[in-house]
C-alpha cells in the first residue's frame, strides 16, 4: 500500500511536522540521504510560502511507483490571494514578504519535477516530485 497522506498547514509548528512527515516518507522510499535532504528542504520552503502568502492550506504527500522508479510527490494547496506574476515569483531574490525570495526558485531547483498553478483571488497549487535516480 503506497502512502498518500494529506496534512493541514496552519502554523509554523506545522512546518516542522511536515518536514518530519516528508522525511519519513522519503526514508520509506529509500531515497538517498542527499535526495531526502533536498525534498525535505523544498517542502519546508513551500510550506512556509503556503503559510505566509496563502494564509495556510494543505499538503498532500504521495509515494509513487512507476516502472521500477520510486518517487515522492508533494502538493501544496492554498485558497489565498494567488500569485499575479508567476514568472517574477520564480525569480531568485524576488519577494513580496520579508524572506529571501529563494522559496519557489529554490524548491524548483531541489526537485526533479515542479509545477505551479495560481489564479488571482482563488489560490495557488504547487506540485513537486523527487524520483530515485
Amino acid at each position, binding site marked *: 500500500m503506497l502512502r498518500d497522506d494529506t496534512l493541514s498547514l496552519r502554523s509554523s509548528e506545522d*512546518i516542522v511536522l511536515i518536514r518530519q512527515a516528508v522525511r519519513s516518507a522519503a526514508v520509506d522510499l529509500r531515497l538517498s540521504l*542527499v535526495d531526502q*535532504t533536498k525534498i525535505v528542504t523544498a517542502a519546508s520552503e513551500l510550506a512556509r510560502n503556503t503559510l505566509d502568502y496563502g494564509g495556510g492550506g494543505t499538503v498532500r504527500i504521495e509515494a509513487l511507483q512507476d516502472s521500477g522508479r520510486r518517487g515522492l510527490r508533494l502538493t501544496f494547496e492554498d485558497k489565498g490571494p494567488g500569485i499575479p506574476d508567476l514568472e517574477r515569483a520564480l525569480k531568485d531574490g524576488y519577494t513580496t514578504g520579508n524572506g529571501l525570495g529563494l522559496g519557489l526558485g529554490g524548491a524548483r531547483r531541489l526537485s526533479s519535477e515542479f509545477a505551479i498553478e495560481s489564479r488571482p483571488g482563488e489560490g495557488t497549487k504547487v506540485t513537486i516530485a523527487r524520483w530515485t535516480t
Partner: protein
Amino acid sequence: MDRIPILKMGDYLLVTVQVDMHDRLAMTLQEDLAERIVKARARAVLIDISALEVVDSFIGRMLGSIAAIARVLDAETVVVGMRPAVAITLVELGLALPGVRTALNVEKGMEILRRSLGHSEGNGNGAAAESVAPPSEADAER
C-alpha cells in the same frame, strides 16, 4: 516556553541546536543570543548545527543574522558541524551563507575563534594557540 540553551565558557557562548527548530524558536534564539552577548560580555559565539538534518532558507537567514548581530556587538561567530547533505542542499537552494564563518567541527571552530580573538588582543591565549598550530593547517582554515 521552548528555548535553546546558551552555555557560557569564559569569553565564549556555546549553542548546540539539537531540535528541528520551528520559526519562532529560531527567532527566540536570535534574540536570546544578542542579550547574552551583551550581558556576558562575550567575545565569540560558537553554534553547533551537527544535529540539524535540514537547514532551509529561514534557518540559513537566521544564522546570517546572528553572525551580523554578533559582529555589531563586537563578537565573532562560527557555525560548526554542518552535514554534507545539508551543505549540498543549501548551495543548490541558492544560499551559500555569505558572512557566516564555518568550521567542520567544534574543535576547529574553537581554534578559529581563539586565533581571531588572539589577533584582536595581540597577546594571551589566542596568540599562544596560533604559534602552536602548524602553518599549513592555519592556512587551510582561513
